[in-house]
C-alpha cells in the first residue's frame, strides 16, 4: 500500500523524531501509527491521559466515545479537560485539548453512551479499542463486540488506590476457534460479574488521580506498541515471549502510607482463550444481531438497576 511506504512529511519527521529513532519504531512503525484507527471508549480518568499519549505519538485517526459532560469533580484526575469547559461534552472538551497538542490526527467525536445498539457500528470503524469506561456492563459489551468484530482490546480499570490493565483479544482470532492458544477475551478472564453490593465506583469509593493516570498512560503504551510493532497481526505475534496469548493482568496498588515498593506492581499470568467461553468459545451463540436486539441483557447480567447505567 502506498500509505505504508510513503515518506514522512517534514513536519511529521520533526514532530515524531524522538520516537522514530527509538529502536523498534522507525519509519515503518511511525507510518503504522499514522495509518491506524484507534477508538477510546470513555473520556474520563483513563481516557484523558491515554488520549494525550496516543495523540502525541501520531495515531492517525482517534475516535472518542463518551456521553457525559465535564464536571468540576472530574478535574482532579481528568487532565484533558479544563475549568472553562465544564458543562461541555467530554468528547468535545478532550478533542479541543488534543488538537492543541497535535493537530495532525483526525479526531472523531462520538458524543453518546455506548450501547448494545450502537456499539458494533462504532467499533467496526476502528482497528484497535481502548476500554476506558467506568462500569462493568459496558466492559462485557465492549469485549463481546470486539470478539465478534475481531478487534484487539486494551482494557484498564481503576478505583480508589488500585488499578488494573490487560491486553485482550490480541491477536484477534475468529469466534469459536480454540485450537492452539488463542488470546482470551474479557469473559475468559472475568467469567462472572461480582454481586452489585461488592462493586465500588469512583464516585462512592473515590479515586487518586495518579493511580488512574498511571493506568491510562499504560494503556497508551500498550496501544502504541501493538500498532507500531503490528502485534495485532497474527503472523507477527507468534513468538513465545510476546505475552499476549496468555496475557499478564497488571495490577497497581498505591499506598498512601508508604513509598512505592515491591508489591506496587504485579503482573499476573492469565490463561488463553477458554473452550467454554460464552463469547469466544467453541459453542458460543453470541452474535452482533443478538447483541443489538438485547441478547444477552448486559444490565441484567451485571444486575445493574436501569437508572444507574451510564457510559
Amino acid at each position, binding site marked *: 500500500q502506498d500509505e505504508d511506504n510513503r515518506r514522512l512529511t517534514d513536519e511529521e519527521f520533526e514532530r515524531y523524531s524522538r520516537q522514530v529513532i527509538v529502536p523498534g519504531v522507525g519509519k515503518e512503525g511511525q507510518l503504522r501509527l499514522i495509518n491506524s484507527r484507534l477508538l477510546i471508549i470513555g473520556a474520563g480518568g483513563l481516557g484523558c491521559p491515554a488520549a494525550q499519549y496516543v495523540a502525541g505519538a501520531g495515531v492517525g485517526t482517534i475516535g472518542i466515545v463518551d456521553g457525559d459532560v465535564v464536571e468540576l469533580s472530574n478535574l482532579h484526575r481528568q487532565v484533558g479537560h479544563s475549568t472553562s469547559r465544564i458543562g461541555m461534552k467530554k468528547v468535545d472538551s478532550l478533542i479541543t485539548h488534543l488538537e492543541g497538542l497535535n493537530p495532525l490526527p483526525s479526531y472523531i467525536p462520538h458524543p453518546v453512551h455506548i450501547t448494545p445498539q450502537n456499539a458494533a457500528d462504532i467499533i467496526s470503524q476502528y482497528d484497535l479499542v481502548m476500554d476506558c469506561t467506568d462500569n462493568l456492563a459496558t466492559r462485557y459489551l465492549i469485549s463481546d463486540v470486539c470478539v465478534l468484530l475481531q478487534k484487539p482490546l486494551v482494557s484498564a*480499570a*481503576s478505583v480508589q488506590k488500585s488499578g488494573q490493565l490487560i491486553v485482550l483479544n490480541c491477536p484477534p482470532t475468529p469466534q469459536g476457534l480454540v485450537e492452539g492458544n488463542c488470546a482470551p477475551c474479557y469473559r475468559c478472564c472475568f467469567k*462472572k460479574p461480582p*454481586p452489585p453490593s461488592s462493586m465500588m465506583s469512583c464516585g462512592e469509593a473515590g479515586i487518586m488521580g495518579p493511580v488512574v493516570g498511571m493506568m491510562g498512560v499504560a494503556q497508551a503504551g500498550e496501544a502504541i506498541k501493538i500498532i507500531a510493532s503490528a502485534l495485532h497481526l497474527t503472523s507477527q505475534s507468534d513468538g513465545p515471549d510476546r505475552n499476549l496469548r496468555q496475557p499478564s493482568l497488571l495490577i497497581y496498588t498505591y499506598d498512601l502510607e508508604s513509598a512505592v515498593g515491591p508489591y506496587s506492581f504485579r503482573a499476573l*499470568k*492469565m490463561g488463553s482463550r477458554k473452550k467454554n467461553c460464552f463469547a469466544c468459545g467453541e459453542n458460543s451463540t453470541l452474535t452482533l444481531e443478538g447483541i443489538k436486539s438485547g441478547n444477552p441483557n448486559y444490565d441484567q447480567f451485571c444486575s445493574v438497576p436501569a437508572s444507574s447505567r451510564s457510559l
Partner: protein
Amino acid sequence: MSNQTEIDTIPITVDFSGGLEMLFSNRRRHAVSLPAIDGAGKPANIAFLIDYLCKNLMKDPRTDLFVLDNHIRPGILVLINDADWELEGEEAYEIQPRDNILFVSTLHGG
C-alpha cells in the same frame, strides 16, 4: 518427619489486593501457617485455605464480600504464585510450602 501430622503446618504468604485488604485488617500481606491436613484428613488445598482464612484471618464480619455459597465470590481472582488458579487446578490445587496465594478484587471504575 513428624508423626504428629495433626500439628504440621505449611508456611505460605497470602496477599490481598484491589480493596480486599480492607477485610483483612487493612494488611496486604499475611504470613500464614496453614494446617497441612484438612478436617477430612486430606492435604490442604485452596478450598480449605479459603475456609481457613474466613475462620481465622478475617476480622471483618462481611464474609459475603469474600465467600458466597462456600466458594470464592464472583469478581475475585485467585492467583497461585502469580498465575491464575485456573491454570493450576482451582480449588483442588494442593498448597505447597512457601506458596504465595493472592486474592484480588477485579475493578470496573475508570
